[in-house]
């Protein structure tokens, strides 16, 4: 019994505890605190924060399949693997070299002979030495490295930064090995959670302000410079192109778009990118006002704007259909996002499908939000979150938001130069999306200087245009880099 108890304690969270998980749990608690006490995007940061806790409970990965990383091994996935470098059967492969088919066949043979182990994620292939009797033997010195953090092991050589590979224990090799979290994470890895959220977003969004002032759409385009500016900065910091694009998309200030893009281009950064995006979206009232004041004169901030004309129902119905065709032709890689967004809006505006719109706005978006938040949070683990990269991502995130804000405001001033009809340049800041937070920020900043100036609805136009703008930008990135 003593042994049973000892084994249980050894396998428990206390026996498997590491400093890394402690720090991650602290981060999870911090996000929950900010969400509940400070009201930072609680609908997403409560599930994400709790997901961080869920994903960082220590356990014995040799025995149990619990984390979002514990999925089945499939030969089919091998094609996607990249390696840092390896030598197998006397052949050398360089860093990030795509493994070629001949090698794959050889590799599969090894697996079938029980001489090699495949890892279970996009991130790694692992090679193991076994002796004649089939026992795992220590590899020649220097050839294997064990990772801190308990559940990830075992490579002929890990990448320099020790981030991936995540390895399936031998006992579970070739077997169906999916944890509940791995299953639920399919919604992100296969990419359908963000579009389903966009279906609800479309059904919740009133494009009226955008339709009333078509000219202001351009502000939603201008603010996307934040995406591309941050991308260039990220490349300077040493991120590769796919990683840089995933970081840049934080500047889109739109959660589902960021998750959709990042889970395709750089899934290993997903946790950091998602947390960064939602954190800064919640912090828009802190980030934006100084930049807005810096780039505008008091006279500009006092500009009032006239109420718009009516938008006939016909245009409200035509817009989601024609707008979809237009943007999807241009940025077809974002088809799923754009399609769901505009379908949701059509369900809302057609007035003949109200029950579908209502369900999309409530149960559907809520269910997907819980599962998306929880599994994105659980994807963050010490080994891939407590890194220099994460710090870089958070720094780049605030750069992206700042550049986006500046881009919107400056473009509004530019529009005032070339056009007679003056607009208040503050509303350019709403182009970053972060709906409806940044439109409220515009309203507040303008209202501080003129108690009779109400810009909220004027700012909503660029605000929702920014959602479309960042989805288009995501389409460009996905099309170019996939």
């Amino acid at each position, binding site marked *: 019994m003593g042994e049973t108890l000892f084994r249980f304690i050894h396998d428990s969270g206390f026996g498997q505890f590491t400093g890394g998980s402690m720090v991650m749990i602290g981060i999870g608690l911090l996000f929950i605190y900010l969400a*509940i*006490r400070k*009201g930072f995007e609680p609908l997403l940061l409560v599930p994400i924060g709790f997901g961080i806790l869920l994903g960082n409970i220590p356990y014995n990965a040799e025995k149990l399949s619990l984390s979002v990383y514990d999925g089945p091994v499939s030969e089919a996935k091998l094609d996607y693997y990249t390696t840092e470098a390896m030598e197998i059967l006397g052949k050398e492969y360089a860093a990030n070299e795509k493994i070629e088919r001949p090698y794959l066949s050889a590799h599969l043979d090894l697996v079938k002979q029980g001489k090699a182990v495949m890892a279970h994620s996009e991130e790694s292939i692992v090679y193991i030495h076994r002796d004649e009797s089939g026992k795992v033997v220590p590899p020649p010195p220097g050839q294997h490295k064990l990772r801190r953090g308990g559940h990830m092991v075992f490579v002929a050589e890990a990448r*320099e930064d020790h981030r991936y590979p995540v390895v399936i224990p031998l006992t579970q090799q070739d077997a169906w090995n999916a944890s509940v979290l791995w299953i639920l994470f399919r919604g992100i890895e296969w990419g359908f959670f963000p579009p389903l959220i966009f279906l609800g977003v479309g059904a919740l969004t009133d494009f*009226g*302000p955008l*339709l009333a002032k*078509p*000219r202001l*759409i*351009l502000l*939603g*385009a*201008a603010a*996307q*410079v934040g995406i*591309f500016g941050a991308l*260039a900065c*990220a*490349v300077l*910091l*040493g991120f*590769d*192109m796919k990683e*840089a694009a995933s970081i840049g998309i934080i500047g889109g200030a739109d959660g589902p778009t960021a998750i959709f893009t990042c889970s395709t281009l750089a899934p290993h950064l997903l946790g950091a990118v998602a947390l960064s995006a939602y954190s800064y979206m919640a912090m828009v009232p802190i980030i934006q006002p100084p930049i807005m004041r810096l780039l505008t004169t008091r006279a500009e901030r006092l500009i009032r704007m006239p*109420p718009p004309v*009516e938008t*006939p*129902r*016909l*245009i409200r119905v*035509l*817009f989601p259909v*024609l*707008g979809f065709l*237009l*943007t999807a032709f*241009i940025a077809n890689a974002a088809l799923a996002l754009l399609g769901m967004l505009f379908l949701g809006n059509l369900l*809302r505006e057609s*007035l003949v499908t*109200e029950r579908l*719109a209502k369900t999309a*706005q*409530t149960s559907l978006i809520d269910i997907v939000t819980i599962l998306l938040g929880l599994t994105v949070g659980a994807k963050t683990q010490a080994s891939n979150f407590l890194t*220099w990269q994460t710090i870089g991502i958070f*720094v780049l995130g605030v750069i992206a938001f700042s550049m986006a804000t500046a881009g919107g405001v400056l473009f509004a001033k530019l529009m005032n130069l070339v056009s007679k009809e003056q607009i208040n340049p503050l509303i350019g800041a709403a182009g970053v999306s972060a709906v409806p937070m940044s439109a*409220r920020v515009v*309203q*507040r900043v303008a*209202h501080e200087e003129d108690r009779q100036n109400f810009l*909220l*609805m*004027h700012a909503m136009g660029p605000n929702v245009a920014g959602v*479309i*703008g960042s989805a*288009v*930008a995501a389409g*460009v*990135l996905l099309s*170019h880099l996939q």
Partner: protein
Amino acid sequence: MSLILLAYDLEVAETRFIDALQLSAVGIAVVFAALVAMQGLLVLLRRFSLTPAPVAEKTPTIQSPATQPTGIPPEIVAVISAAVVASLGTGARVTRIRIAAPSAGSAWSETGRREVQTSHHPRRRDS
């Protein structure tokens, strides 16, 4: 952060940066192209639909609650109205339901005004 940078060959980094700038230029161009096209589309649509919006839409009343895609089922709207009328004896509160459809011009500043009122209480009820 320079440590990370050092791990890379500078030549690779330079090529990559040029790629990034190219991609950024194309990206910004495409985003603008898409949204300028959308603006054009809307301008065209407005021109071809010179018919003014139906009156029923300008001043939505309780009698046609179904036209408001507010997610509130019409029965509830009817009940709210009935209850309000019954309890207060005036139509004052009925105006509040009309506000939910932010299409009328005056509603714009009204919405902004409401935002201002609520924004003075940034603390949440969990405080």
